[in-house]
């Protein structure tokens, strides 16, 4: 009996040394993961040439002052594919200026913004599960503590955006709602 209890204690706590060992490889918060997806996707998306008429900047628009906004502050000013990253919260500016638009949730406001950029070369990203059906291009979700994203290439192509096969190979891809087999 005592032996069993001792064994139980050991089994419970035997891994303490493992735990106290070196730092884990990277433990992100949800907001950081979403920001990382936004930033990284920009590397794998090709915008049409006319989207950069306003100078060498890559504009990320975040709808509402979301925690994602704060997480993105770390990449403000960095250079991606030769363009400087600028991150702002979306206001009433001309939507032409955005290259990437993040809409946390597809409520009335989110739907309005999605409609505003429809057809324009703006990469739209959201967490909302209905996003792709609503015309959005990329949906970010979390499955068992890992970030996953889904891409609707039909919606992206109609807006003039090209997503590289590298990014497509890492995501669940649909074309206008139909899953694309790879």
């Amino acid at each position, binding site marked *: 009996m005592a032996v069993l209890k001792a064994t139980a204690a050991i089994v419970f706590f035997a891994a303490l040394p493992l735990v106290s060992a070196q730092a884990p490889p990277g433990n*992100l918060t949800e907001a950081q993961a979403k920001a990382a997806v936004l930033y990284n996707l920009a*590397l794998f998306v090709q915008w049409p040439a006319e989207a950069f008429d306003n100078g060498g900047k890559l504009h990320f628009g975040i709808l509402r002052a979301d925690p994602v906004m704060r997480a993105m502050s770390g990449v403000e000013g960095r250079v991606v594919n030769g363009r400087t990253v600028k991150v702002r919260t979306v206001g009433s500016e001309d939507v032409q200026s955005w290259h990437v638009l993040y809409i946390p949730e597809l409520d009335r406001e989110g739907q309005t913004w999605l409609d505003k950029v429809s057809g324009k070369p703006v990469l739209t990203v959201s967490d909302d599960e209905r996003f792709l059906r609503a015309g959005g291009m990329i949906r970010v979700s979390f499955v068992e503590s890992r970030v996953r994203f889904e891409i609707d290439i039909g919606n992206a192509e109609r807006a003039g955006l090209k997503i590289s096969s590298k990014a497509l190979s890492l995501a669940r891809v649909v074309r206008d709602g139909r899953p694309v087999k790879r």
Partner: protein
Amino acid sequence: MRFQLLTASLLLLSALATSARAQDPVDLAAVNLEDLLKMEVRTVSKKEQQVFRTPAAVYVLTSEDIRRSGASSLPDLLRVVPGLQVAQIDGNKWAVTARGFNGLWANKLLVLVNGRAVYTPVSSGVYWDLQDFMLDDIERIEVVRGPGAAVWGANAVNGVINIMTRSAEVSQGGFVSVRTGTPDNAIVAARYGGTLGSQGYYKLYAKHTQRAELVDDTGADAGDDASITQGGVRVELNAGLSDSFTFEASAMTGESGERVNEPITSYAFVERSMIEARSPLDSQFALARWTRNKSQRSGFSVQAFWDHSYRLVIDKGETTQTVDLELQHRFPLGRRHDFVWGAGQRFWWDEEEVKFAEYLDPPSSRMRLFNAFVQDEVSLLPTVNLTVGSKFEHNTVAGFEVQPTARVAWLPTARQSTWFAVSRAARTPSRIERALHVDVAVFPDEIGRPIVMSLRGNPAVQNEHTTVYEAGYRIEPTRSLMFDLAAFHNRYDDLIGLRERTAFETTPGPPHVSLIQERANGVTGESEGIELLARWQPSSRWRLDGSYDFLRIRLHDFRPGQPDAISLASRNPTHQWRVRSWLSLTRGWQLDSNLFYTGRLEAVDVPSYLRADVRVGGPVMRNVTLSVVGQNLLEPTHREFDGFEGVYLSQVRRGGSAKVTITF
């Protein structure tokens, strides 16, 4: 005692060791996409955020909780939830309740599966052996202790368990799992999901469970093995952006054994003996639901379900059938109000076999239940919200009932919340309480005339009522530490107990004196308790959960002319605690351990026990995982409950099993 000290000191040491390490900041620009997909993300899901703000004692079991518990049955899984009492009675039966009054047919807990109520109107309890889900297929289980929000109805006095299975949309592809060992000899399950056109998904599943016998008090086999085979389908169709349609159906068949106390016929005398009974198990259900979600705050759903089951209960055949139709509508009113209302109609039919000396009178019945509810969640201040609601029910048994609730949640800071609630809950008497007739014994008096002792239901019993006062507090002092405390005080009225009376009866002949113990309302009482949960995640590799429950019930029964509460005698431990450790080893392997302490059951002389379950699991190949589980490791056998209601108790055994899952 020394074991507890050892545990405590080890915990303290690990606390000191790990708190010394700082968190490394993450450079987003340095993370590439492939690596990003492999990293662990600390998600505070919408659900968790909701839980933090909810003015109720909520606990959510995620699919990770389910997988890492090593449990192979739903009741075993529920052991980790603070405030629930789970005790195994025999190889295929469990007593599960929240906040007291446990029993084979614990009746103060409402269990829903995907919105479908699964309790039986005959006993007001749940047949846990029929809730034999593929545990890998459960998305999450939400447990609310206390009278569920007014959206659920009578019988949700002390808790609501809502089991949600995975949608077909997230169950795409194939999945097979095989588990073998003891006490569950074999559990084989398979699932396959695919798409239907561009907006639909389907899922098919099948499962076979074989549970082995446990042992009786002498160590001999108890004849309580069980075997169940089931299969089902689930289809989801999305129409446009807001509409979705879900259909599910399932059928189950099997057999289980138990030892029961049966009357043996003998002219004019009733003798009782233990027999080994086998019961066929047959159950089917179908459910359809249409949901329209306009936005986060508005939408409605309409749902209909049918279920049917046949089995033997204490060796008597029982058939039940349910048809239910309900709708719910949710909409915002202005900026501050979130309004939900709903209505539903349910029909029940039941029929029981009539056996010598034990039967329901009448043997079959129909019940019609109408329910409606309203609930308004008001945002009084950005940090305070108030939920007010009520359920209204009318049923053919107990007439009209109103169950109001008022709840307030206050979030003084982003990391703390506190809540208070007052509610009134009702429980409708079961068929057994209204109609069961059992001749317990017959013995002769001094001159040889028979005296019959019998236990009788009473068709005149009414609803039980409870007033529930609850409060809770949650705090996250640091990102890695969380405490959740819930406390309650219940006042019980009109509880159904047993009242004695003597009568001279002429049927069935010969004329005899009957000593009758009859069900009657009239027992009152109070209960108090606390449920404390602590969660500590010092690193991304290790999470430690601890919880403690305290429960005290006082029933007042020794008043002349009032029924006594012996049949309600508390079969609940005063103290329970649990410790769970989740450890991530290398290469995706995990070591998970659970320790459960259940205090002594005074009323039925069951000693306290400590239970330890350990699981080691991880990937062995791409798409194949292996896990090895040891359960009840500390003792070869132990008792968890008592036998009553005619079923004999078996002892729970130490066991080990291995499980392989394959995804394709």
